[in-house]
């Protein structure tokens, strides 16, 4: 028989993992979701009956990629700062994350404006348009949702309602943000580098 004090401690440790495991499950489901859109994109690659083709209209979004990937670094620094109780540093890094995420979205918006109005590519144009807007659009939607959640946290921080005890929540949220980043790496490889 194991001493129950030891057991109780182990149980408390497990309870602290609730958020992380819940988020990991959500990420698993989302990975499946994006997987289907990526499969559809690859399945229809080069099968469009009419133009434009990816190589004609896409260029590698270098700046947007740098923005999004570096936001993963800033959010990690922010969570570390919150854990250490450095509220000033937390706010700066958190704000930087939001700014970088928003710049990514802005870059996507500019790209889409050029594609739709400049090149005449919409979701109804051909299979490329269909699969491209669905995949990139769902990724952008996830960035938007992430930014909304980040903004809620920032609001709480600015009103002074965020303490080191919330570091775990911020950590869990940062997992989601890293996931959105990882999806972007896949999208970049499949859509842009593979054009």
């Amino acid at each position, binding site marked *: 028989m194991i001493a129950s004090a030891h057991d109780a401690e182990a149980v408390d440790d497990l309870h602290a993992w609730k958020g992380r495991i819940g988020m990991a499950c959500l990420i698993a489901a989302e990975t499946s979701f994006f997987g*289907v859109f990526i499969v559809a994109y690859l399945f229809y690659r080069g099968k469009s009956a009419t133009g434009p083709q990816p190589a004609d209209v896409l260029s590698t979004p270098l700046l947007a990629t740098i923005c999004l990937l570096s936001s993963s670094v800033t959010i990690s620094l922010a969570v570390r700062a919150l854990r250490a109780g450095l509220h000033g540093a937390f706010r700066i890094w958190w704000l930087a994350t939001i700014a970088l995420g928003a710049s990514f979205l802005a870059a996507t918006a500019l790209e889409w404006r050029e594609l739709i109005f400049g090149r005449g590519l919409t979701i109804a144009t051909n299979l490329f348009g269909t699969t491209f807007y669905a995949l990139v659009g769902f990724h952008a939607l996830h960035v938007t949702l992430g930014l909304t959640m980040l903004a809620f946290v920032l609001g709480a921080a600015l009103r002074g309602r965020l303490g080191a005890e919330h570091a775990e929540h911020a950590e869990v949220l940062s997992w989601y943000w890293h996931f959105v980043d990882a999806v972007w790496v896949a999208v970049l490889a499949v859509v842009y580098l593979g054009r």
Partner: protein
Amino acid sequence: MAVLGQSIDTVRTGEGESLPLAARLHEWVVTVDHKRLGLMYIASALVFFLVAGSMAALMRIQLAVPLNGFLGPNTFNRLMTMHGTTMVFFVGMPMFFGFANYLVPLQIGARDLAFPRLNAFGFWMFLFGGLLLYFSFLGAEGLYGAGSAPDVGWFAYAPLTSRAFSRGNSTDYWILGILLSGVGSTATAINLVTTILTMRCPGMTLRRMPLFVWIMLVDAALVLFILSPLAAAQVMLLFDRFLGAHFFDTQAGGSAVLWQHFFWFFGHPEVYVLILPAFAIASEIIPVFSRKPLFGYPVMVAATVCIGFISMGVWAHHMFTVGLDPATNTFFAASTMAIAVPTGIKIFNWLGTMWGGRIRFRVPMLWCTAFLLEFVIAGLTGVMLAVVPFDWQLSDTYFVVAHFHFVLIGGLLFNLFAAIYFWFPKATGRMLDERLGRLHFFWFVLGFNLTFLPMHVPGLLGMPRRIYTYQPGRGWEIWNMVTTLGVAVQVIGLLFFLWNVVSSLRAGAPAGDDPWDAWTLEWATTSPPPEYNFESVPTVHSRRPLWDLKHPDDPDGRWE
């Protein structure tokens, strides 16, 4: 035996009873308690079951004799689609979530699920998803004067679902109803996995977890991986229908076969999502009524995990007639046969549990025993259909219909009945009547076999599924007539069941805390359990914590 759940309760007795009806209903609406949500899942599933079962009865009346005019082709297509969709998404799934909700926290000694409010969210998304689907009967005609309820079949093959062939909004209701309830299912699956991994009471290691909980863990994980691909495919279909996208539009180079791949990547694992709870239930009930611990517990866990993995690699056996290349057909035939191995292991382990036990044939055990027999038939016809040339001959015939009804009724529904008889005393504090239960069992099993055993034959004789009527003189008449008569016998059984539930709720014999002399933690608290489940957090030392408590001289832990 109520060692863990009393005394605080005495302070609160009578509360709730005295409240007016509106306030009591309000309590159910705002509740985040896993037991209430579990009961609401099961109750809604039973209502949907009766609705979709009535649809099946109507279809059987139409098919009883050739050239029957009871239902028109349009009505038949709608009933067929709604029957399949409802039974899978709004009966099978909520039954899984209902029993998991009610029992998982109790069996692992927790107070509730990890995220109680998310749990309520999941339930209401499921319920309103179902109501949205049924609202299509009223709302789906839209402006086109075409179509009311969805009529594209439960797997909604492209290109039948494109705007050109499916006018009006019926297909959109099919998409959105399932999409919404799918969001709820994913939320609940996240909740279950998190609960099982983090909320177990002290001493409840993964190796001591009741097999029921293990199977629910695998099942919830499976839901996580397969429901979102369905959602993705349905979103693509919505894009096709509303934004002019070309995912499944063959004229623009899109592929109807891709929809089949996406759908069955969800659709086949879904069959395992539905049947795994049946395995979970049998794994709890058979040991208790055989008076032996479950035979081969670690192997059962391994078999469950194997089924979870392999089930995601068998989907194209639904597509042998599409014209895939021989290598693909071979792979999926082999994987389909392979999944019969862990399933067979389970059958033998249940038999091994019964072997040499002092078996008590109470009603739950009757259902589980019948399940073993019927499920072997279901499994055998399944392996037959995995043989590609055999499938070429019989795909989309009544042989397939008979096969999967053996799986879902003989496999799933029998065990759901077993579970209701087994855990009804825990949830209500009253026993279901044994005599009515036996009548229910006898008539229903008779009716089931009368319906679905003969149904194999018209399939072998070439009768396609989904036809609303047929010509005389093909040798199908007698089989269809017997099948339809079998439905009437099943209805008699169901009436005994409903009467049993209603009368036992009012005046059933008091159950006590542990009416079956069982071994898992839910029987350690009162019946019904208090809101907080256990007064003090239990500590367990073996797979059968209540055995240890009842037999301190011979605890299980000694043998671990």
